[in-house]
């Protein structure tokens, strides 16, 4: 049966503003913004014409490298604008949504009776393929490669992350159907991981997948941590990854024939008057989702979590893969003797007159201040304390910085995603941008090694 995954290295950053378990339905309407940059590494070829009407699930653009990978509109409505930047790079496609949704019909399917090829074609043609991401490189999966296994993390361990047991409640049928479909795509196993002490998980009792219990601090919920423990990636191997909430979309597509990207999103963080859950479509304008719910003017809104999410403005949009919006205070102020006075209101893994080790249960209201200036790497050994993979994090970061492909490969770059370096970036005394360094390193590898 299943194997539990236990880690000790890591860090749970406890923040104020956990979402209360009530869900408000946000009506559709308004402008939706789809950003091709949400799909890392994809060069879009736009099909959408300004002024045209689209149904939910109809293609807006496709990937230049593989025309079968379609990117659909999450809502039905009228395309109002295609915004391009330098060298005509597509930045945004804006859609004015209909008040009542029209869905493109892709036909009901029964996953258990489909062949591997049928499943793949169906996911591609219905625009569900972008939900399938791959390791190495953490990009949309290449449909021409066969994955050795498929991973779904049913547990979010990031700070304030949406509780999937709550957000996906009642979606057992969709999840089961999608898991069955994913099982067709690989000769190996489908691995699903949930928190060890979760009794309410919609994944409990799922068939056709191996269910694993997770014990330990963040990043236990990151798929890389789970992959490393169950089926580590070697050179030349590919693993596919689907997030739990996207699994539901795939399941619903199979069961009803509709592409319904609606998801339960957690509004979290200290700057929300009432942190709670809402339902929304990806691409929804942030201002419509957070209206009347913000405490102050001095906030930062993040689509995603505080560690690897994207900064968005009120006019910005909910990211395509995100099921969380976080609002924390902006930290753009000076602090007198901030570098040497005892610190009680910030999190630290050291005890250098920082006292968060004394109050492990306390919830903090952290802001976006860097708490120091950017420096060369000096301190050693601190990353290892929050990094559970069998990889030397600083050495890999440096290999990425000096662009040594052989060394990156040898040190395990195939096994990681930028999000795995979020905690090391958080604790970094030298305030180095770890996730950016890793992203650029992976992009270089992908370009050079394919």
């Amino acid at each position, binding site marked *: 049966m299943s194997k539990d995954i236990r880690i000790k290295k890591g860090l749970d*950053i406890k923040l104020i503003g956990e979402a209360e378990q009530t869900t408000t339905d946000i009506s559709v309407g308004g402008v939706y913004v789809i950003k091709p940059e949400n799909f890392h590494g994809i060069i879009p070829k736009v099909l959408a014409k300004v002024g045209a009407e689209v149904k939910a699930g109809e293609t807006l653009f496709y990937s230049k490298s593989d025309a079968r990978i379609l990117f659909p509109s999450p809502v039905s409505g009228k395309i109002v604008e295609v915004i391009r930047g330098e060298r005509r790079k597509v930045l945004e496609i804006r859609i004015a949504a209909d008040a009542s949704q029209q869905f493109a019909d892709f036909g009901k399917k029964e996953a258990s009776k489909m062949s591997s090829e049928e499943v793949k074609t169906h996911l591609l043609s219905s625009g569900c393929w972008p939900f399938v991401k791959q390791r190495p490189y953490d990009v949309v999966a290449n449909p021409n490669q066969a994955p050795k296994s498929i991973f779904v993390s049913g547990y979010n361990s990031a700070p304030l992350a949406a509780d999937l047991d709550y957000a996906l409640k009642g979606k057992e049928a969709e999840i089961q159907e999608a898991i069955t479909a994913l099982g067709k795509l690989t000769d190996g196993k489908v691995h699903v991981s949930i928190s060890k002490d979760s009794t309410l998980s919609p994944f409990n009792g799922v068939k056709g997948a191996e269910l694993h219990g997770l014990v330990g601090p963040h990043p236990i919920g990151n798929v890389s941590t789970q992959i490393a423990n169950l089926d*580590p990636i*070697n*050179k030349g191997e590919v693993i596919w990854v689907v997030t739990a909430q996207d699994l539901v979309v795939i399941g619903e597509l199979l069961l009803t024939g509709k592409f319904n990207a609606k998801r339960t999103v957690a509004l979290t963080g200290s700057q929300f008057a009432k942190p709670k859950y809402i339902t929304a479509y990806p691409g929804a304008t942030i201002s419509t989702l957070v209206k009347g719910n913000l405490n102050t003017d001095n906030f*930062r809104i*993040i689509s995603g979590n*505080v*560690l*690897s*999410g994207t900064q968005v403005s009120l006019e910005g949009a909910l990211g395509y893969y995100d099921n969380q919006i*976080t609002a*924390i205070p902006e*930290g*753009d*102020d*000076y602090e*007198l*003797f*901030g*570098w*040497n006075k005892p610190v009680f209101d*910030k*999190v*630290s*893994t*050291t*005890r*250098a*007159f*920082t006292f*968060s080790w004394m109050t492990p249960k306390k919830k903090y209201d952290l802001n*976006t*201040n*860097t*708490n*120091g*200036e*950017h*420096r*060369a790497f*000096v*301190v*050693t*050994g601190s990353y290892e304390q929050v990094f559970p993979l*069998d990889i*030397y994090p*600083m*050495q890999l970061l440096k290999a990425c910085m000096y662009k040594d492909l052989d060394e990156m490969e040898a*040190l*395990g770059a195939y096994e990681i995603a930028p999000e795995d370096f*979020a905690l090391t*970036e*958080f*604790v*970094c*005394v030298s*305030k180095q941008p*770890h*996730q*950016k360094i890793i992203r650029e390193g992976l992009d270089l590898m992908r370009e050079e090694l394919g």
Partner: protein
Amino acid sequence: MGLKQNLHNLKEKYKGTKMAPAFNAIHTFLYLPNETTHGGTHIKAADDLKRTMNIVIMALVPCLIFGMFNAGFQHNIAVNGNFTSGMSFFSGQFWNLENFFIGAVKILPLVLVSYGVGLLVEFIFAVIKGHEIEEGYLVTGMLVPLIVPVDIPLWMLSVAVIFGVVIGKEVFGGTGMNILNPALTIRAFLFFAYPTWISGDKVWVEGAVARDQAIVAGEKLDAISGETMLGALAQGKEVVYSIWDMFYGFIPGSVGETSTLLIILGALFLVFTKIGSWRIMLSGVLGALAMGLIFNAIADAGIIGESSKFYALMNTPFWHHLIIGGFAFGVVFMATDPVTASQTNKGKWIYGFLIGFLSILIRVFNPAYPEGVMLAILLMNVFAPTIDHYVVQGNVKKRLKRLKAKLT
């Protein structure tokens, strides 16, 4: 907030100019900057490099203060010849203002010159290269006065500091890029350039050199002297100090390295705050004990006779090595410098152990200059990247093995 706003305006004014790094260096000492995160994690832990360095400096302060009292104390006992072994650590004979003033007058200038010259060099380099001033010298500047003899002339110290900062650090690209520990580079420069000022029986006691010069000039005075423990042992002389004297630090030596007790307190503080590497400290001690035991065994087995010049140090009970000379200070404060030490946790064990091992080896076999810890650390600084290389290769090989197992 008048000051905060005014400084902010000034910062904006200097932005992009040559003087920006110099201004920011001072500004950031007063205020944690208003920088916010962009891309990457939106929140950051509370620690920065300034805080980290500050912790090390705080761990050194007791050694500095003790050094001031001890300088006066050594002066007085050399002049009056009234040393009584076995004082309590809190003895008024040691902790009195007279001692303190003699020491402070001598040692504060060392601190000021070390920081003044070193930071000046850093400022010049930062302005020329247009990067921010990094905090590395904050610790170096504190270490330097603690590891030199009290009577070292200030001009000599200045020359050494300039050499150490420029050649030891800046030519490699500044803090974080250097191969050798800058403080030890400074001390090594002093040692090889001006050997008479950093060994022998004069320089360790405040006023001894000046007194000698006065005698040469014809004044009728008694010469005073004080020899370090190691110097005495290396020459096979009788040591008048008890174990407790040595442990408490009532002995001649470099300014801050004599009190093993306070060094242990500093070490505990560094380990508790998670700033210093306990792996390096512990393995360093183990290495020293191992080498000490080997030498004791050689001496006991009669392989080396009492007539040998190595006999006295070799026959010193192995654990004495931990409390005499600069070993404890070196292992706690110098070997643990994260930039020049091994960077992998496994590597730190090997690196520390070899430092301890080699320190005692050099100590015993180099009677002319029996303090081995400086050379041992500098040597291991050079080898630290090699140690790391093999540790990391272990990880790489594991990965290749996994791949091979898969393929077959």
